[in-house]
């Protein structure tokens, strides 16, 4: 369905505020200035055992001015939608640049900020692909649907509790810079989620099973049958949960794994997505999120995984959560290789990092999560390519004598250079002689990034491909969150270390 940019947003004095801010920045001697006005509406609806248990509807409206002045960055943000206000914020940004210059001078450094060239994109608009704006659906309809879904699960034997939530975001962004680029964009995304909980009151044991439907860059239609079969998933969950409660505890050791896209997306996010952010690799996130083992000197050399591993950075995927028309530095969306035939061949960059490293043009990975935050280098949709003639998930399982099929994400953790990781999942099925043989409990897989990807023996076909993702990827200081998608097929990994989490807890 074709949409236009929300008229209430375009009715704001976008151009006039930008002109006031950019003119002031120019007058104060800025080499570069950009202006970004955003309106982000984020809402949540939550139900506990089919009853409303809290919700919120928040709209963040404001603007930011970022300058390069005297070779230093300066940033300021404001909410006063007057020309004077915008000019004042521009002055504050220049003042911050001057403060930076003082510190840099005191440190004896001669570092100067320069930006990679980008063609001018004048008066561009871009709107994400969705049918129904979730904010145009009555709240009562949302609550009713979530209550219906919760009730279906609660009616099943063995389900003691159900938590339901729906997150929805409508994001409008206007950008203008001193080079002449002007973009106006609109994005919509939703994330419905249900969790069923079983409790054995006698033994005190409990466990849960969550939907594996991913968050998506779609609208309300995602909840009514487009892009996901909710009826089918909700029907299966109680049985899965009941089986999990009865399942035997896994024997720790080494197993072959068939990893479903509902789990593998998160492993990609942590071990490839973050590891190929060039700002991290260069040290600009070192004190917080960390650096990367995939250092810049290894570009074109590092054996990241097996030769069937091909990973792209992509800002253009339809319904992707990190899909845009133009980033927050006015760079047009692109798609490129990060890992090709198992070798590191690319990074995610912004304009400053691209210039600093001589990579030429930024690939459009600058993003700020609010008008009060500076754009930082953020993840594109980072996805593992399926094998065009690849196997189905069933056939991948069929090739395993003794292994585990991993479905759905749960806990995740990786070290600050993206070597050592540990993941759990929603359900783990034992594979015996090529067939599923019931669930296992207490499973976690732990590996080192290049060993894990090096152990990938088969990549599933396009029929197994799913675009997973998250709303809440954290990075930078002050902390920012971004939503990002990761597409992947099912894949087969050989000889992976499996932990028993009960034993890890010392029990």
């Amino acid at each position, binding site marked *: 369905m074709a949409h236009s940019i929300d008229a209430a947003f375009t009715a704001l004095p976008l151009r006039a505020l930008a002109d006031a801010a950019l003119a002031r920045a120019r007058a104060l001697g800025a080499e570069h200035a950009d202006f970004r006005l955003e309106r982000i509406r984020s809402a949540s609806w939550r139900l506990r055992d089919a009853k409303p248990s809290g919700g*919120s509807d928040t709209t*963040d409206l404001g603007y930011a001015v970022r300058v390069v002045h005297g070779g230093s960055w300066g940033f300021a943000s404001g909410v006063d939608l007057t020309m004077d206000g915008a000019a004042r914020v521009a002055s504050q940004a220049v003042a911050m640049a001057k403060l930076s210059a*003082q510190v840099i001078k005191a440190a004896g450094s001669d570092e100067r900020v320069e930006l990679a060239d980008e063609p001018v994109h004048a008066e561009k608009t871009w709107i994400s692909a969705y049918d129904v704006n979730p904010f145009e659906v009555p709240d009562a309809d949302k*609550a009713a649907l979530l209550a219906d879904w919760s009730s279906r699960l609660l009616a099943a034997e063995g389900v003691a509790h159900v938590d339901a939530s729906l997150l929805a975001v409508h994001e409008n962004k206007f950008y203008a810079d001193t080079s002449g680029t002007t973009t106006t964009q609109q994005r919509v995304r939703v994330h419905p989620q249900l969790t069923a909980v079983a409790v054995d009151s006698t033994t005190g044991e409990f466990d849960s099973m969550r939907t594996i439907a991913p968050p998506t860059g779609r609208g309300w239609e995602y909840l009514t049958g487009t892009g996901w079969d909710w009826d089918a998933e909700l029907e299966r969950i109680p049985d899965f949960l009941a089986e999990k409660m009865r399942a035997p505890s896994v024997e720790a050791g080494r197993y072959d794994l068939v990893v479903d896209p509902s789990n593998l997306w998160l492993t990609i996010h942590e071990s490839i997505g973050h590891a190929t952010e060039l700002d991290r690799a260069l040290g600009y996130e070192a004190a917080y999120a960390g650096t990367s083992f995939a250092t810049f000197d290894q570009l074109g050399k590092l054996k990241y995984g097996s030769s069937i591993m091909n990973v792209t950075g992509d800002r253009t995927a339809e319904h992707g959560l990190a899909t845009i028309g133009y980033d927050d530095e006015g760079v047009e969306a692109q798609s490129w290789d990060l890992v090709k035939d198992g070798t590191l061949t690319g990074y995610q960059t912004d304009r400053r990092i691209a210039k600093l490293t001589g990579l030429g043009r930024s690939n459009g990975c600058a993003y700020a999560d609010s008008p009060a935050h500076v754009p930082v280098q953020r993840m594109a949709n980072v996805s593992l390519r399926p094998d065009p003639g690849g196997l189905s998930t069933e056939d991948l399982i069929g090739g395993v004598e003794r292994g585990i099929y991993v479905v759905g994400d749960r806990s995740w953790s990786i070290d*600050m250079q993206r070597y050592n990781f540990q993941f*759990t999942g929603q359900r783990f099925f034992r594979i015996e002689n090529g067939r599923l043989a019931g669930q296992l409990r207490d499973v976690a897989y732990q590996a080192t990034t290049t060993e894990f990807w090096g152990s990938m023996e088969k990549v599933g076909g396009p029929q197994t491909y799913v675009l997973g993702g998250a709303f809440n990827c954290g990075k930078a200081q002050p902390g920012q969150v971004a939503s990002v998608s990761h597409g992947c097929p099912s894949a087969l990994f050989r000889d992976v270390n499996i932990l028993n989490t009960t034993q*890890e807890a010392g029990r």
Partner: protein
Amino acid sequence: MSAIRTKPHEIVERALELSTADGCVVIADEESSANLRWAGNALTTNGVTRGRTLTVIATVDGKEGTASGVVSRSAVTVADLEPLVRAAEAAARGAGPAEDAQPLVTGTPASPDFTDAPAETSSAVFANFAPALGEAFARARAGGRELYGFAHHELVSTYVGTSTGLRLRHDQPNGTLELNAKSPDRTRSAWTGRATRDFKDVDPTALDAELAVRLGWAERKVELPAGRYETLLPPTAVADLLIYQMWSAAARDAVEGRTVFSKPGGGTRIGERLSELPLTLRSDPNAPGLECAPFVIAHSSGDDASVFDNGLPVGATEWISGGELARLTSTRHSAALTGLPLSPTFGNLILDAGGEKSLEEMVAASGHDGPCLLLTCLWYIREVDPATLLLTGLTRDGVYLVENGQVTGEVNNFRFNESPVDLLSRASEAGRTEKTLPREWGDWFTRAAMPALRIPDFNMSSVSKGV
């Protein structure tokens, strides 16, 4: 269209006047912040921000109960108020009865400064700190170190008004400094952090000197395999683990049988001894240097918060007393549901076991009967199993080997799998309680005071090559 020129208490009053709902709570948050970020001995980004967020909570009575609607907007002007109030009322009507519905709070005395202008921070907070930071960069450069880090200061003035007559205000300053030093080849890394209210009590040159000592410790590398080791957890690591434990301490969840604090067969573990040490885990809005809001500020309802409780006084609470679990977090609704005492969530956390030793003194008493590990901090902490509250995560920025009371080198990093509840039961010694900045949760929770803990058998599950 100025958003800032109208006084926040006037905005609150006007929104309450516009309300046609059965009940209304209005929260105005006036926010200002300033930050500096640096990498490789050079500033990378910086910023100052100023904003206002207005949250309107409308409550609507119906035959089946009371519904609530919560709508927040930033950059609110007087002209925006009526649509905002109406949106909250519409949200309440569309939501259906709220399970946590309670009468809005009454009787909390008005704050004397409710009509005063909001407090504000700016880049001026760094007037002395920024030059000192530049000096620290120069010293680090001369000493062969690279400094990375972040300084952040914010002030939030919160005004709460309700249709039941509450007029409350709280100013919350919040400052953090994180300083990370690395060797130029990045094979050695050390970290320290501070929480501060005004940046007058932090000296980056002194902290850089502290980190230089730690980088010196790291010049001798010792490889150790995964295993269980006697380990000294510094206050920042203890804070990160216990903050997560408190996030998992909702009374209702425990009674429903779905947390580590659930008792097999029903009920909760309240009254159960969690530690042989005389540990007290508490929160106190008046704790010196850790002051936080003395009343509930809830922008939305959830498992451990209720918008209906806005304005409810929050007093000092002991969560663990003398080593026994004493309280779980609750709202008025969940307290009534579970029969447990009302214990709202909190803005600070203090662990005290009466220990008097500094971390240095604990180091001096360690490593005489075998190696002992001294951690710097923990990172990427995530829940593996809610039944045991098993958490995983990694050591970071320095694991040091203590032998015969001395630090003798740096050990590789590890992934751990541990439950804070189990750690409390196994802790054999607690040091002196001191203010600390939680490393991982410092983005959200900064007001903590913790002792170092000695754990005889900390589970280092695998080796991490990360530095």
